[in-house]
């Protein structure tokens, strides 16, 4: 009896899983219509002082000098059927938003997106935080420090 009930449950779960992962011909299924960047995820966030041609940072560091340009390289995986929004928000230790930049991406596999910030009169010493958002949801943070 228990075995039969267990088997029936497994069958029901399997059917539910198959049905939920399949797409439909004409129905508008709100549960599976996440086309905007639905297949994209942030896999890595690096920061450094310079970028390579493939938009990776040349040397990861979280320590910067006041006159450095700070680069963030964000690795994403997956394919986007519609453009996904990648946003980088930099904040200072007192909570001030230093900069916020957004890029639309429609990757078809692994991709790198870079954001960079600079300040002509030099960065105030202190701690900064980079937060990366994918389609409005936080996808990771990175702490950096500017030292005199």
């Amino acid at each position, binding site marked *: 009896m228990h075995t039969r009930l267990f088997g029936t449950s497994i069958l029901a779960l399997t059917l539910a899983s198959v049905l939920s992962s*399949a*797409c439909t011909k*004409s129905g508008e*299924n709100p549960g599976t219509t996440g086309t905007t960047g639905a297949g994209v995820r942030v896999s890595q966030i690096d920061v450094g002082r310079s970028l390579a041609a493939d938009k990776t940072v040349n040397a990861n560091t979280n320590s910067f000098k006041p006159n450095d340009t700070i680069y963030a390289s964000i690795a994403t995986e997956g394919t986007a059927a519609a453009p996904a929004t990648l946003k980088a928000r930099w904040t200072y230790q007192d909570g001030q938003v230093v900069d916020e930049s957004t890029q639309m991406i429609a990757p078809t596999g692994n991709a790198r997106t870079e954001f*960079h910030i600079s300040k002509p009169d030099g960065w105030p010493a202190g701690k900064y935080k980079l937060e990366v958002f994918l389609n409005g949801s936080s996808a990771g943070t990175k702490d950096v420090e500017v030292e005199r």
Partner: protein
Amino acid sequence: MGIFDRKSDKPPESRPDFSNVRSGGSSTAPAEPQPTGTIGSGRTYVVVKGDSLSKIAKREYGDANKWRAIYEANKDLIKDPDLIYPGQELKVPGA
């Protein structure tokens, strides 16, 4: 002067000014979805979660009712036009 009128001897803390920060960015990914390839006079399309034949037809031809053209070109892959799966590579004839 009352004690409540007394001002602090400390100078007011000045907040750093970030109004002149310059920023930019770029990506190896395109800003718009790209076709995945070309086969004959059409091309291929990789199904993603949430897709349906009519949605793909709407996107590729501007007419959702042309889903049957995609279905006919992919009968070897699609057993039931109501069921397509993420990752399937579909031929989109004449797109």
